[in-house]
């Protein structure tokens, strides 16, 4: 009996014992701008200007941008550059074969990237937000760029003119658990040259872009939540009625 109780007590701790966080660069928390139309529109502009040249968002139609407050005319004049129709899907004109030759890999489709990058370390938005802000110059890489979140990434720092150029400082430290090993420890970024945006402005712009990517991952998300509130309240009301109705029948069962 006692043994069993002990066993149960031990088993109750199991989840805590096995819960060990996997390593990796800690993610910053992306600002929540999922309902901020101005931010989403700015994000859409950045996306079309900087991302869409190489990446597709082939599940996404341009005219869906009406959901973030743009008119079809605004979309046509500001966001369509190569004669697409407003109902077209967001596809890149870069041929996959060229992409493979230039970057070593075909840039992934970004339609649902914000959903795909979610993990225990943070939401997909957090991942992209940190990723786009941790590029540094690394001459050992073919593109000249490397990244803290995505080491040895194939994509160069597309936003470098906005952020400016930085290098990363690493120090070699003795591994406290193993004398024979050293740890390659990140000590921070060092500025090489300024960009057109200040640090705060850059973070803000990336925040907008991430908000857009997050929205694009599921354009129906705000409809879903709005509708959800009504449905859940209605169902709870119905449940209350059903509860009383049931009680009125069971009253007579002795």
């Amino acid at each position, binding site marked *: 009996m006692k043994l069993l109780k002990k066993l149960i007590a031990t088993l109750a701790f199991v989840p805590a014992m096995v819960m060990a966080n996997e390593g990796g660069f800690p993610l910053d928390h992306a600002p929540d701008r999922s309902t901020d139309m101005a931010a989403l529109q700015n994000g859409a502009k950045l996306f079309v200007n900087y991302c869409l040249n190489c990446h597709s968002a082939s599940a996404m139609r341009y005219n869906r941008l009406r959901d973030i407050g743009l008119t079809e005319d605004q979309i046509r004049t500001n966001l369509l550059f190569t004669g697409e129709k407003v109902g077209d899907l967001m596809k890149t004109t870069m041929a996959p074969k060229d992409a493979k030759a230039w970057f070593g890999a075909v840039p992934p*489709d970004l339609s649902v990237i914000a*959903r795909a990058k979610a993990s225990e370390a943070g939401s997909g938005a957090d991942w992209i937000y940190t990723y786009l802000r941790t590029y540094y110059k690394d001459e050992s890489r073919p593109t000249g760029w490397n990244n803290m979140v995505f080491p040895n990434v194939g994509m160069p720092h597309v936003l470098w003119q906005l952020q400016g150029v930085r290098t990363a400082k690493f120090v070699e430290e003795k591994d406290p658990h193993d004398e024979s090993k050293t740890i390659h420890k990140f000590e921070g970024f060092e500025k090489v040259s300024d960009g057109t945006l200040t640090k705060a402005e850059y973070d803000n712009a990336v925040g907008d872009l991430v908000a857009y990517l997050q929205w694009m991952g599921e354009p129906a998300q705000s409809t879903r939540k709005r*509708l*959800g509130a009504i449905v859940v309240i209605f169902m709870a009301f119905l449940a209350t009625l059903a509860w009383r109705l*049931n009680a009125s029948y069971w009253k007579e069962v002795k």
Partner: protein
Amino acid sequence: MAFVEKKLPADAPVVDKALNWVDSRFPLTKLWNDQWGKYYAPKNFNFWYIFGSLAMLVLVIQIVTGIFLVMHYKPDATLAFASVEYIMRDVPWGWLVRYMHSTGASAFFIVVYLHMARAFMYGSYRKPRELIWLFGFAIFLCLMAEAFFGYLLPWGQMSYWGAQVIVNLFGAIPFIGPDLSLWIRGDYVVSDATLNRFFSFHVIAIPLVLLGLVMAHLIALHEVGSNNPDGIEIKENLGPDGHPLDGVPSHPYYTFHDIFGVTVFLTLFSAVIFFAPEMGGYFLEYNNFIPADSLKTPPHIAPTWYFTPFYSILRATTSEFLFVIQAGIAAYVGLIFLTTKLPQMIKFAIAGAALLAIAGMMPGALDAKFWGVVLFGGSVVILAFLPWIDLSPVKSIRYRPDWHKLVYIVFAITFVTLGYLGVQPPSPIRERISQVCAIIYFSFFLLMPWWSAMGTFKPVPKRVTFTPH
């Protein structure tokens, strides 16, 4: 015998006439009364008795949403992933239908696991309900197959590699394994051929079998009557009208009882659909938003949460763990020889099988992967034997010795822990814990003929315990 139709008065309501016309040709009223209307169910059902009806509801949700999804989904390796996103964006209300279906899959398992937990607690599988249990077990197998086949269809990375891992398990079977997994896939890797056949199984083959089994499950239940939290046969106490004194007709009492349960369930179900359809990566795995890529293996492949208790047992079976299993088998055979009165023939047959298994686990014989698959399958199949290995003199946990409750709690914690470990990436400590849990899991069943009959049982009342409400 000549066909005789009951004559109704000329001024009888037209509905009655129509019903009479049908009833003379098809037992409509009789079916309704036998299966629900005048089916007397024990009046002392508690919270745990709602999950059967809820499972039925989820089945209907899955079928109806499935019909609409098939209208837009493309079972083609080059189009499948995009067609799911098309449903999510361009099909009116497609996102809702898809989320209902994906959440419904998980809800199905939650409801069915709770339904099974009820059977464990109150001995609902005991005589005369063995067939109900076996039909239920077959439904559970179908459900697992249905979930497995369906999970490939979105054609994301986790769909793809999950299917790859599970189909490869068949490759562990000696001699025919590699050919068998090739035959299942229809290709050397999971591919368009695999997707098409899984689609066929998911939308027609398994649902057909499932529906038939659900009917058999219900017909068997309504034939022998429902068990209840006291584990008493209510048919042993009939009133002057020939109906059980402790029973109430399902209609209207359980009709409205179940409607109440359904509304509560749907409130929770909608909360998930509308506010957390991914459920933190458990209902929709994050990796599955990346299209399937046969050249990129994800670092951590985990099946969806509802398979993980059994999957953990597969992963726990390492070559060093086989020695523990060998010792366990030897001890078990010893136990059978020393403490049971089985005929000599059967004892020796068991010993022979055990010897074969022990020999097969020797280094150089069959590898740990094969035995992992055997234990993986065994951990599911062992459920089917429950009616015959539970030798407790009472059905319900209420009248069993108190320490039996602890055994069930330990089993429940073990099952949940196995499930938790199955979604986590492996590590040495997790491997050890899952091995301990695997031993507890199998011991619970294999030792049940001994422990279930041990202890001081409480007297079972003649009539059900019921407080009017």
